[in-house]
Structures are given as C-alpha cells and as structure tokens.
C-alpha cells in the first residue's frame, strides 16, 4: 500500500480519462485486509453483511483459476470483466492478452478502484491500447463505451466474465451491463445476418439502381439547404392515428419526412410529405407503398435500397452513399456522395437526413416504439394481418412515466435514436408522438404544441426544392456507363483467373502431409494476394466488391489466430483461410458479372427508350 503508487495511478488515469479517482482513506465500508499468503484482500460492508471481494487465503491462486477457466478465445476476443477488486485477476489475464485483444474492466464502486490504485501499479494497464477501465453505474456511459468496442466483426467474440461475487453485490448494474452487451450482440448479429442475407440483394440493387443513380441527385445537393427549418419525421406507430391530421397545419413551415408505410396514410389525410425516405433493400419496402408505388414525391434513398421502389418512382431522387460502395460510386458516377449514419429504421435514417439538411428542431410523430394500446402499427398504416412474436416482449420506460411494452427490434431503434441524439449536441429533438416509449434526449410536446411553437415562419419548401433540382444538370451517359461496366467485367474475369490458380496451388499443398508443410509453402499465395491488392488499389470498385469477402473471412473465428498457437496450427489455418477466401471471390465475381450483363442487356436499352421520351417531351 502506498500513497505515491496511488498518485502515480491516478495521474495516469486522469491523463487517459480526464477525471480523477478520489482517495478514500477513511472508510468504514471497505477494509484492506492482509491475506494468509501475505497479499491483500478487500472486505466490504454490504447491507448488514460483510463480504470478501477476494480470497482471504490466496488471491493469487484465485486469479490464476479465474484466467484458467477462460476458454475459446483468440487474438480478437473482447474481454469484458465485471469487477476489478484489487485486480489480481486483471494482472494475471494481462499475461495472456494479445495486443489485438480489447479489454473493458467495469468496477461499479469507485472506492474499490481507489484501493486497487493504492496496492498495484496500473500504469501498464492504463497505457494499454484497446483498454478501458470503467467506473460507476451509468447506463448510458456503458452503452456508449460498448459502442466503441463492439462491432460487427467481434460481436460474436466477446467474453463477458464476472469476477468473484460482483454479480451478487452489484446485481442491478450487472443486469444493465448484461442487457447492454446482449443488445449489442443481437444488434450486430441481426446486422451481420442481414448483411449476409442481403449481400447479393445489395449488389443487385446497386447495379439495377445504377442508371438512375448516375442521372439523379446526390444527397449532397440537399446538404444544409434547410437550415433551422423544423422537420417532422412521421412513423407508423399506433399513436399516429391520434394526431396525423394535425400535420396538415405544417404546410410550408416545416419539412415532412414520410417512410413508405406512412405515405398512404398521409395522402389519405390530404398531406403531401416533402420527402419519402426508402432505405430497405428488400421487396417489403416496395410492397408497403401500396397504391402509391409510382408517386412523384422527392425520394431520398441509398444506392443499395430496393431497386423496384426506385424504378417505379416518378419524381426526383437523392442518393446517399453506402460505406461499402464508395469505390464503385466514384468509379461510375464521379459524384460527391456522402455517407450518413442511417441506423436500423426509416425513422432513424430520416432523423440523420433531417440533421444533414440543417433542420432544427427534429420532431418525431408516430414514433411509439412500443405496443401502445396493444397495437403494432397505426390503424391507418396497417397492411394485412400483422404477426408479432409474443415471446419477444419486455417493458421500458414510457413517455408519460410508467412502463410500456416493446420488443427487441424497436428497442434497437430506440437505442440507436438515443445515441444519435446524444451525439447531436446543439440540436433540439422533440417527441410529439403522444404515446409510446420514452426517447431520452427529447423534449416531450404534443404535435399541436410543436407546430404552434416551432412552425411560425413560412419557408417556401417547394420553391427551394425546385431551385435545387433545376440547378442540377441531368447528363445522360449511357455509352460511358457501358464502357465502365465492360472494364469492370474485364477486371472481374482477371480476379476469377487468379482465384483459379490460387485454389489449384492450395489444393496441392492441402494434400501434402501437414507435418511437412512449412511457411515456405505459403509464399506463392502472397503473390496472388499482392495481385489482388494491386487490383483493389487500382480500382476501388474492386475493393468494394471484395470487401464483404474480407469481412466474412476476417470475422470467422475459425480463421482467427489463437493466443500461443503452434506454427503447424497457424499454417493449417492459413491454408484453410485462403481456400475459403478464393472460393468466396469466385462466387462473388460470378454473381456481379450476372448483374452487369443484365444491366447492359436490359436496362441500358430501356434508358434509350426513356431518353427518347424525354427528347419527345422537350
């Protein structure tokens, strides 16, 4: 125990996190006690009991055991440890960590952390990259922290470990942490499955949307064009039936954003939204438009959103880029096209779009995110019989206090929205749903109050839109597009040939005795890899096409190196990884070539006819 050690740790802690840890010297709740093997343990006064946080006989042996029981981890595993105590187990764990491993230590009690700081030197831990020492019991803080560490590549590679009896001593926060991790894991699992599921559909949509994309607008044309104009994000929650009519009062004093599902309800109520937002890649996005599939309200969409929605649409379109297609977008359109954080729902996306356009305040309508009055959607937005999963229901805080029922999908939308609001400082968010789940960070008003308070200035939205649209020159470039498509196809043919050669060589190595394989055998694969890397560098479009292959391979736990793996194990993994890599490339190439051929043969022809029609009109 030393005060200079404490100061050294606190100074490092302060440098990293910008806050200090108080030295709790005179405390009767927490006692440092010598153990039988001359170390220290901590005795905590908890309610009317006394509990030990470490063994009072051998905390070192206890720490060794804690680490020994950790199984199935590799160099990318994210370790989340609930309970720091004096940190024997952390010191032991650090011996086994690879620099790639992330480590989050959660100590709910700052007093305990101060004791740990006076017993051991933690500067090495505090200097370690990919490490966070969290203290406190703030739900939002832990949510944000997990957001920094957990992503789609590691969500299924998390070790959440509870030290000692921390889950019994701090059960409420344990539940919070457990739920937050669970939510992140399920969010990324859904996202990964969606990506895998829609991968082919994304690609199909991208190529089918390409002709419109090159002719229509980029979202950048709208950037900051509606500064301080109120935005109304209309969603299909059950409360929408209550106040939808009030939206008529908005007129040109605010922007109304509709999703596909709410469009019919708005039109039936004689409200013409200013924008329709369509994000989903699947056919459902097309079907919810019902009889309004061929509407001409400006459409804000992404380059990979459902192609049928985009083909049927008759008005102006504004495209948002997708982070995995930026190379292809640039290759084909040469346009500046921003990527926006779109979240998981149309309302999430609409909020991000409204912010990008400069709107303020951003007002949510029909954003229940809960089964208000036991309903799933507003009556006006319901299409057919809706099936809900009775098992997937839980309570969250309601807008007017008390609890409301939600489900895991809505909760994901809610989490995203709260995080988005938290990061959008200086903007006002209003929840004018008049029911449903509480969205933290919003001001709660009725829709009528919101309109009266914030829609005082008239702003000629339609005129502004006309101006933006007329400033944009629609240049048709079919021949250029065809040339670019053919060039891309040639590159894909080349990729296919490289993969064939690599797979042939790998097959030969694979059939050798594994004992006789050395690192020398893997040298030729590096040549193939270099060829592919060069192609990706020369044409970022190729990089986009292969990105999902890389993602799949890199997040596959079967191929990630384990800590302290033998050379043979490493080699075997390299061979299997490469085989899967080249197989996946071949599948991807074949699929993209199909979309390109389809586009050249069918769509570019129809553009000529479309072009003639435009010419005829003028």
């Amino acid at each position, binding site marked *: 125990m030393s005060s200079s050690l404490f100061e050294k740790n606190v100074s490092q802690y302060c440098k990293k996190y910008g806050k200090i840890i108080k030295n709790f010297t005179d405390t009767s709740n927490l006692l440092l006690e010598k153990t*039988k093997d001359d170390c220290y343990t901590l005795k905590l006064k908890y309610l009317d*009991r*006394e*509990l*030990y*946080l*470490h*063994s*009072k*006989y*051998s905390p070192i042996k*206890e720490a060794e*055991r*804690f680490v020994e*029981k950790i199984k199935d981890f590799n160099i990318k595993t994210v370790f989340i440890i609930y309970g720091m105590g004096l940190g024997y187990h952390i010191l032991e764990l650090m011996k086994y960590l690879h620099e790639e491993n992330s480590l989050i230590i959660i100590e709910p009690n700052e007093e305990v952390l101060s004791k740990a700081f006076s017993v051991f030197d933690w500067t090495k831990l505090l200097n370690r990259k990919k490490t966070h020492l969290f203290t406190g019991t703030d739900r939002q803080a832990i949510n944000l922290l997990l957001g920094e560490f957990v992503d789609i590549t590691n969500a299924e590679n998390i070790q959440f470990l*509870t030290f*000692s*009896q921390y*889950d*019994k001593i701090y059960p409420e926060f344990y539940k919070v942490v457990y739920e937050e991790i669970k939510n992140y894991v399920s969010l990324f699992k859904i996202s990964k499955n969606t990506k895998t599921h829609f991968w082919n559909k994304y690609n199909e949509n991208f190529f089918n949307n390409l002709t419109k994309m090159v002719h229509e607008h980029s979202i950048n044309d709208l950037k900051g064009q509606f500064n301080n104009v109120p935005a109304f994000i209309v969603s299909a929650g059950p409360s929408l039936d209550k106040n939808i009519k009030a939206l008529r009062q908005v007129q040109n004093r605010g922007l109304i954003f509709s999703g596909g599902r709410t469009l019919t309800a708005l039109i039936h109520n004689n409200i013409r939204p200013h924008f329709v937002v369509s994000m989903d890649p699947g056919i459902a996005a097309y079907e919810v438009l019902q009889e309004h599939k061929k509407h001409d309200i400006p459409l804000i969409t992404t380059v990979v959103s459902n192609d049928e929605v985009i083909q049927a649409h008759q008005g102006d379109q504004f495209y948002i880029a997708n982070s995995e297609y930026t190379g292809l977008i640039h290759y084909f359109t040469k346009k500046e096209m921003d990527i926006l954080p779109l979240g998981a729902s149309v309302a999430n996306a609409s909020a991000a779009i409204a912010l990008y356009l400069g709107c303020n305040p951003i007002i949510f309508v029909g954003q229940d995110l809960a089964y208000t009055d036991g309903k799933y959607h507003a009556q006006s937005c319901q299409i057919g019989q809706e099936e809900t999963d009775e098992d997937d229901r839980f309570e969250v805080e309601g807008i007017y206090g008390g609890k409301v029922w939600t489900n895991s999908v809505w909760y994901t939308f809610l989490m995203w929205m709260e995080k988005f609001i938290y990061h959008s400082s200086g903007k006002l968010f209003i929840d004018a749903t008049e029911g449903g789940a509480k969205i933290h960070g919003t001001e709660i008003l009725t829709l009528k109050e919101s309109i009266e308070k914030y829609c005082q200035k008239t702003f000629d939205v339609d005129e502004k839109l006309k101006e933006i649209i007329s400033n944009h020159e629609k240049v048709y470039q079919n021949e250029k597009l065809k040339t670019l498509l053919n060039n891309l196809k040639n590159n894909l043919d080349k990729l296919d040939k490289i993969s064939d050669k690599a797979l042939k060589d790998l097959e030969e190595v694979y059939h050798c005795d594994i004992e006789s394989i050395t690192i020398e055998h893997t040298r030729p694969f590096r040549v193939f890899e270099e060829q592919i890397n060069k192609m990706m560098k020369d044409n970022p479009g190729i990089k986009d096409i292969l990105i999902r292959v890389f993602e799949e391979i890199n997040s596959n736990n079967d191929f990630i190196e384990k800590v302290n793996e033998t050379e043979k194990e490493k080699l075997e993994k390299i061979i299997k990884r490469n085989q899967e890599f080249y197989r996946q490339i071949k599948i991807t190439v074949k699929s993209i070539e199909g979309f390109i051929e389809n586009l050249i043969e069918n769509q570019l022809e129809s553009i000529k006819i479309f072009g003639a029609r435009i010419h005829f009109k003028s």
Partner: protein
Amino acid sequence: MDKREEKMELVRTAADYTGRLIEGINEAVDLFHEGMEGKALDLVIQIIDGLKWTMEAITVTLDVQEEAIDISEINDAFNAMSEALENVDYVLIADVLEYEILPKVEEWNQKLFITAREDS
C-alpha cells in the same frame, strides 16, 4: 463380529467415505468459482451432513485408530463456515471449504486409511 471388528469396519467405511467427501468438497469449490452458487450450496449442505457423520464415526472408533484423530481441530473451520454462511459470502464459503475443511478431511482420510491398512 466382535466390537473391534465392527469398529474396524466403520473405519474402513469412513476412510472410503472421506475420499468421496474430498471429491465433493473440491466439486463445491469449483462450482463456487464457476458462479454456480445454487448447486454449490446444495453440495455444502450434503458436505456438512457428511462431516457430522464422519466426526461421529471418528469419535466411536477413537480407541482403534493407529493415529488418533482430534476432531476438535475442525471447530474453527466450522465457526468460520457458519459466519460465511450467515453473511452469504460465497468467496469466504469457498475459501473455508478449500483452505480449512479440505486439509482437515484429507488428514482424516489418510489417518483412517493408515488404521484400515494396519489392520488388514
């Protein structure tokens, strides 16, 4: 069977039984460390009953034991266990099992086996 023979039979049974008790204690310690306190506590109840039976067996066979076992040596461990159970302190319960009770039971087991072997 004469009285001594009966007692020797009891020593052999107790020697075997303490072997199983050692396994049970180790299992309970592991369960506590794995966070399965419910299962571990069920085992602790059985362990305490088993210890009571063993101590009775030791007491009635004192006169035939090659190396006499002093069961009072475990009193401190029982006191510590009772305090740990009262506080529902799983760390301390596991500690007492591993560092106080287990060494004693291991010692008894050895001594009982010595007596059992000497006789055979």
